C-alpha cells in the first residue's frame, strides 16, 4: 500500500515529529536535578490508516515510553504529534477527550492492566461511560457485541479477570481498547506474556480486527519474529532513537544499520541444520543514563571510527526508500 518508508500516504493518520521524553535524575537532600535519562530522544514517524508500524528494540531503548507518551500516560518533554491533520497537545477538555477516544492502548501484562475487582462487563462499559456514549441498554448491547467480536462468550460478562486465562484476559484488554472504535491502537508488547499457541490466536485476532475495522497499530515488541509477522513497516530503536525504518520485507531481507544486523543475527533460527555459532564474548551494553557521544551504537559497532564518536548520524532517506542513521551505510 505504501511505497516508501517515510512519507507514506499524502496525509498520515498519526504523525510524530521530534518526540522526546526525558526523566530527571535527582540527588541529594534537596533533590536537585543532576541529569536526565533521555528515554526517548527525538523520534519521528508516521502511521497511515489501517497500517501497522512495528517498533522494535531491546529493553531500555525507549519503545514502550514512546507508546506511553503518545497516549498521554507520561508527559512529553518535547515534540509534535499530529492526529488526522490536527495538532495534539494544545487541546483541553472536549478536544482532548475526543482525541483520546481515537487512540487507545493495549498493555503487555493482561494480569496487572485489568482491575481485579471489576467484572468484565464493567471493564468494557467504562470507556463508554467516561465518554458518555449510548444509553444503558445500548452500552449493554455494545459490550456483548464486542465480547463476541474478540472471541469471548457473552455469558462470561459477569466474571472477574482472575477467572480467565492469560489469552482470554488479553482479549478483554483488546476489547476494552476497541470499545470506542479508535483509529489507532498502541499495542505495547501485547503477546509477550502469552504462550506461543495463544500468542498466535491473539496475533490472528489483531489482524482480523484490522481488516474489518481499518484500525492502525503501533506495534511495540522486542520479538523480531512477531514484528516481522504483523508489520507493514518497521522502525528499529536503539537508546532512545530510531536507527532504521523500512518496509518489513526490505528490513528483514537486508538490514542496513549495524544494530539491525546484530538484532537479526542474534535471533535463534528454527532450523537445526543452520545453527548460528553465537559468540560467547561479553559485550558491554550502554544504557540511556550513560549514552555514548556521537552515534550511540558506536561502542558495539564493528564499523565505528572517529567520525562516529564525534558526530551523531541523522536519520536520512536512502535510495531504496529506507531511513537510516549511520555514517557508513
Amino acid at each position, binding site marked *: 500500500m505504501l511505497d516508501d518508508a517515510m512519507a507514506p500516504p499524502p496525509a498520515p493518520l498519526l504523525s510524530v515529529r521530534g518526540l522526546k521524553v526525558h526523566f530527571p535524575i535527582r540527588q541529594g537532600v534537596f533533590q536537585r536535578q543532576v541529569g536526565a535519562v533521555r528515554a526517548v530522544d527525538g523520534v519521528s514517524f508516521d502511521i497511515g490508516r489501517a497500517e501497522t508500524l512495528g517498533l522494535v528494540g531491546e529493553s531500555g531503548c525507549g519503545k514502550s515510553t514512546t507508546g506511553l507518551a503518545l497516549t498521554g500516560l507520561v508527559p512529553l518533554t518535547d515534540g509534535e504529534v499530529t492526529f488526522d491533520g490536527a495538532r495534539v497537545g494544545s487541546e483541553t477538555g472536549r478536544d482532548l477527550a475526543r482525541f483520546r477516544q481515537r487512540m487507545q492502548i493495549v498493555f503487555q501484562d493482561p494480569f496487572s492492566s485489568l482491575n481485579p475487582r471489576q467484572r468484565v462487563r464493567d471493564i468494557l462499559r467504562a470507556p463508554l461511560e467516561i465518554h458518555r456514549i449510548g444509553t444503558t441498554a445500548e452500552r449493554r448491547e455494545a459490550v456483548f457485541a464486542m465480547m463476541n467480536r474478540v472471541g469471548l462468550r457473552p455469558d462470561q460478562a459477569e466474571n472477574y479477570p482472575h477467572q480467565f486465562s492469560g489469552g482470554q484476559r488479553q482479549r478483554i484488554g483488546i476489547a476494552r481498547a476497541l470499545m470506542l472504535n479508535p483509529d489507532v491502537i498502541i499495542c505495547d508488547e501485547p503477546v509477550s506474556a502469552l504462550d506461543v499457541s495463544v500468542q498466535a490466536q491473539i496475533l490472528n485476532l489483531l489482524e482480523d480486527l484490522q481488516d474489518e475495522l481499518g484500525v492502525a497499530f503501533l506495534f511495540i515488541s522486542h520479538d523480531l*519474529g512477531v514484528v516481522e509477522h504483523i508489520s507493514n513497516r518497521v522502525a528499529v530503536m536503539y537508546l532512545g532513537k530510531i536507527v532504521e525504518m523500512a518496509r518489513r520485507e526490505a528490513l528483514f531481507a537486508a538490514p542496513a544499520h549495524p544494530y539491525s544486523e546484530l538484532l537479526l543475527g542474534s535471533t535463534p533460527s528454527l532450523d*537445526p541444520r543452520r545453527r548460528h555459532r553465537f559468540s560467547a564474548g561479553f559485550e558491554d551494553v550502554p544504557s540511556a543514563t550513560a549514552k555514548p557521544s556521537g552515534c550511540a551504537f558506536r561502542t558495539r559497532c564493528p564499523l565505528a571510527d572517529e567520525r562516529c564518536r564525534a558526530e551523531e548520524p541523522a536519520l536520512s532517506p536512502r535510495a531504496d526508500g529506507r531511513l537510516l542513521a549511520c555514517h557508513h551505510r
Partner: protein
Amino acid sequence: MSGAALSEGAAGTASAPAPAIEVSGMRIRIALGDTSFTVVDDMSFAVAPGETLCIVGESGCGKSMTALALLRLLPQGARIDRGAIRLGETDILELGERAVEDLRGNRIAMIFQEPLTALNPVMTVGAQIAEAVARHRGGTRRKAWAAAVEALRGVQMPDAERRAKQYPHELSGGMRQRAMIALALCCAPSVIVADEPTTALDVTVQAQILGLMADLQRRSGTALLLITHDLSVVAETADRVIVMYAGRRVEEAGITDLFDEPLHPYTRGLMGAIPRGAAAGKRLTDIPGTVPALWDLPAGCAFAPRCPLATPRCKIERPPLEEHRPGHFAACWEIDHAG
C-alpha cells in the same frame, strides 16, 4: 521405555556411554488441602555426557517441576511418588537431605531463569561462588576465592577480579546470568539443569549466553538438560528433544527428526504458531482453546479437546508413547492418518 531417551545411534552399541543422569517412570504429585493431582507423569529420559536434551512445552506442562525434581528442590506440597532418578550410580530419591546437599552444586547444578532472584542479594557474587567451592571442595578461604574468580573468568566475565567483589544488583542482566553459570560450573558438575536460562534476556545477550553455554559444554563434556518454551532455542541447542503437554511426554525425537517431521499434532501446532519470516503476513495456525487445568484433565488424550484430528477414541483412551520412526516417539492414535 527409557531406551527412548538414549541419543540416536547410541542405543544398542556396546560403546554407548553410561548416561550422566537417568530418570525412569517419574511421577510428581501436588497436594493442595484435601485434593491432590498429578503434575508430571511417566517421565523417563537419560542424558549422556556432552549431550543436550531439551524439554519444551508451554506454561503448566510440568517442565519446570521436572527440572526441580532432579535436584530434589520441589516446592512444598509437591512430591515424587513413583520412579527413580539415577545420577551416575546414585539414586537421588534414596538419599537423605544431607546427602542431597552434597550433590547439589557439586555433581548436579542448576541455572535458573531469573538470576536476580536466584542469587543471594546480600552476598557478593564472588563470595557466593567461593562458598559453594568451600562447601564441596574444602580448602582455605583464599583458595576458594581464587577458584571463584577463576570461575568468573571461565564464563568470560569482564574484569573478573573486580566483579567478584560486587553484589548481584550492581551487575547487568547478562553479567548476572554469567555469574550464575559460573556458580553452577564452579565444582565441575556432571549434569547441568538449565530452566529457561535466557528467557529474561534481550536477544543480543541471549545469543552470547547460548554461545557461552555451548562453548563450556564442548570443553567440559557436561550433560545438559535445557528446559525452555522457545522452539528456536531448542533448534539452536538440542541433540534430542522431549515435547511435554499437560504433564506428559507427547513426543520425543532427535533434533533434526523433530523439526523435519514433527509427528504429534501438538508439536505441529506449536511449529505453525511461531511467527516466522517465510510465512510473514500469512495467517498463523493457532491452537484453539487453552491448556487444560492439571486437576481437571480429560480422561483420554489431554490434547484431544484442542486437536484437529481427535476421534471419539482419543477422548476415552490415552495413547501411549510409541516409537513410530527409529528413535522417534509420539503419543497419538492418529499419527498414521495424519499424513
